[in-house]
């Protein structure tokens, strides 16, 4: 016989959860007492509930397992909202358990009462308000099933305090399986559609494969790599898809979209067939005017979510299904039909692409001892030998990391792509480091983003997490300032704060970590290497960079994919 609180923790254990992130408070205290009396589910105490959600999110992105969060009602619950929305936009499996006031107090404006199911409704895949203690095992089972299958996403379980009362005990049995009559995500793609897609793919003269975060989340990287290499076609990844295909392979054209490479965007625009895999034609890819998007392309679109297909760009051949299963079926068909490829056309297509590549759009020009932000990522890539887990915040540093760190494996690049949440990087890195204690985990951030969740430095100390924070410090909200330079005649409205920035070295030291500052290009790589050589401590590496650097290429607003700024003075 177990209490509701005990059942909740026991159910998490039965679901395979060994790590949760949270923050206690009034309505969650029965649950916290249940945590105290067991040792199977470890709990990480964060310093702010938003940090708990991002940490769980980072854990989920790095491992593929759902991240779990436990918070109290009211402010505890509302503080998770940004993190839930972040996970929702990037389809990350997450369970958020929030305390709630007692059942008879719901609706009475009780202390720390918030309608969590209502507040979170637009940003969850589903949510539950637990009505009876004996429902807890089945609710937990359903929540994990929904969060982790189909297109994954966050699920909220709101638990009234009296439901977890230690005085009320119930028989506990965890359900072995779950059946929801209204929820059955597809297990495979439509074979007829796949056959049609393969035919079109093989007859293409200027094909390109465009793969997104769905390949990473759907564990389809191996199948994607096999298909791409069998076909010999060029491939580009979205921001969320980086790592889905090895970035150092010659068929990889880099990231596409707003800050994508010249060759990737040109190849998209000129292509005659686009195979979109687990990507959703986001506005950061297509640019704002859909009518100009890839005018000659036949679009084959694989996605597990039917609502992602033909949402913005009409798919000629839609395939609804899990990318892994669909790609596997495509591979089987392609293997026996490779002779159908027009080798001459493909060779000419590659000649075009190589010509675009020669433009070398990511070249970095040195200026004496001034450190360019791009050079920080290049040095990071060298020092970590391209094998780190890299989390990032949001802004210029995020784009530089995406452009200059070449991810060869999925789940190594961890960033908030859809929602663009500043403050994500550090707590996400905590989740990754806790999942993989021996791995090198770098958090690429800026002096703006890092201050949005900087309190988690304290959590890092408590858990002795040896994260390496690479703070690309340009003393301004760099991306905002870039837009102000380009579209507002350089009027830097509220994007600078140079006089009031903290001394990050001292700040790191105050939290019990190591802090170093790098100001000269000649010492960039050596000092970075020294920092990464410290294996048992968090090191906050504050790198002072050129304040005037912009991210290029950059799509020209309202243009087609082949319309880009390539530097402050050049455009296509």
């Amino acid at each position, binding site marked *: 016989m177990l209490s509701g609180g005990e059942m909740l923790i026991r159910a998490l254990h039965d679901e395979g959860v060994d790590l949760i992130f949270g923050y206690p408070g009034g309505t969650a205290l029965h649950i916290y007492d249940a945590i105290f009396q067991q040792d199977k589910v470890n709990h990480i105490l964060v310093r702010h509930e938003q940090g708990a959600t991002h940490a769980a999110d980072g854990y989920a992105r790095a491992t593929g397992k759902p991240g779990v969060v436990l918070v109290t009602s009211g402010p505890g619950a509302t503080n998770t909202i940004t993190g839930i929305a972040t996970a929702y936009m990037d389809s990350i499996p997450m369970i958020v358990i929030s305390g709630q006031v007692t059942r008879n107090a719901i609706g009475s404006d009780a202390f720390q009462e918030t309608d969590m*199911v*209502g507040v979170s*409704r*637009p940003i969850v*895949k*589903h*949510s539950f*308000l637990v009505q009876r203690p004996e429902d807890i095992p089945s609710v937990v089972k359903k929540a994990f099933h*929904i969060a982790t299958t189909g297109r994954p996403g966050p699920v909220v379980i709101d638990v009234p305090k009296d439901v977890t009362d230690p005085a009320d005990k119930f028989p506990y049995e965890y359900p072995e399986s779950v059946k*929801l*009559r*209204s*929820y059955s995500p597809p297990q495979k793609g439509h074979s007829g559609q796949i056959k049609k897609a393969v035919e079109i793919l093989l007859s293409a003269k200027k094909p390109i494969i465009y793969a997104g975060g769905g390949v990473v989340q759907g564990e389809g990287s191996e199948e994607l790599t096999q298909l791409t290499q069998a076909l010999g076609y060029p491939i580009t990844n979205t921001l969320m898809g980086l790592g889905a295909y090895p970035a150092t392979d010659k068929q990889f054209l880099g990231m596409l979209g707003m800050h994508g490479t010249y060759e990737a965007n040109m190849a998209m625009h000129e292509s005659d067939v686009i195979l979109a895999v687990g990507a959703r034609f986001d506005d950061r890819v297509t640019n704002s005017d859909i009518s100009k998007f890839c005018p000659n392309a036949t679009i084959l679109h694989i996605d597990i*979510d*039917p*609502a992602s297909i*033909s*949402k913005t760009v009409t798919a000629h051949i839609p395939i609804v299904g899990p990318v892994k299963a669909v790609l596997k079926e495509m591979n089987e068909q392609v293997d026996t039909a490779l002779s159908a490829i027009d080798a001459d056309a493909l060779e000419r297509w590659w000649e075009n692409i190589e010509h675009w590549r020669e433009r070398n759009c990511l070249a970095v020009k040195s200026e004496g001892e001034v450190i360019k932000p791009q050079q920080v990522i290049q040095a990071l890539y060298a020092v970590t030998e391209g094998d780190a887990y890299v989390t990032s915040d949001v802004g210029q540093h995020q784009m530089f990391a995406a452009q200059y760190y070449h991810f060869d494996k999925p789940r190594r690049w961890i960033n908030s792509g859809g929602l663009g949440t500043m403050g994500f990087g550090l707590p996400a890195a905590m989740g990754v480091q806790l999942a993989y204690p021996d791995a090198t985990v770098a958090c690429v951030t800026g002096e703006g983003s890092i201050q949005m969740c900087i309190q988690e430095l304290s959590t890092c100390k408590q858990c002795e997490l040896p994260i390496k924070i690479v703070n690309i410090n340009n003393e301004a909200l760099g991306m905002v300032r870039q837009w102000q330079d380009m579209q507002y005649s350089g009027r830097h409205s509220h994007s600078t704060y140079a006089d009031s920035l903290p001394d990050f070295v001292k700040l790191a030291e105050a939290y019990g970590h190591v802090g170093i500052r790098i100001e000269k290009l000649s010492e960039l790589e050596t000092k970075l290497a020294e920092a990464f050589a410290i294996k048992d401590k968090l090191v906050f590496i504050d790198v002072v960079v050129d304040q005037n650097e912009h991210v290029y290429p950059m799509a020209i607003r309202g243009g087609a994919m082949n319309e880009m700024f390539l530097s402050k003075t050049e455009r296509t």
Partner: protein
Amino acid sequence: MRRIISMLMENEPGALSRVVGLFSQRNYNINSLTVAPTDDSTLSRLTVTTIGDDRKIEQIVKHLNKLVDVVKLVDLTEGSHLERELMLIKVKVNGAQRAEVMRLAEIFRGEIVDVTTSIYVVQLSGTSKKLDAFIAALEGVQVLEVVRTGVSGISRSDKVLSL
């Protein structure tokens, strides 16, 4: 184009708010909405009328289908169907208008369900267009209150929305 989307959903707290929330969240339009339990007490039938081009309707249908509470769904306007709406309309009637409104109600196959010396309440059911036409025909009559249920619908012949 006007569409009638009808669905079976779990008869559970929060289900309706998810459907309604979806429409506001994605900037879709709700013209009318009716919801009530069915013969199976675990299911509610919800019917919504909305306006949009094919692309928008396709998205609405896909997103509704994604809701875990929505069990099954049909766009009734895709096929042959019946639609009905009930209206109660309170009008001020004096003198010659009394006979005139009574005749109008008869023509529209309505019923006068409440009568005072100066008031009629007319009950009328039919398609939304028919109800609109009745209101239009009352020109010159003082309408005090119009209460419409919103559209309910069902497919014709052997097409059935059930589990």
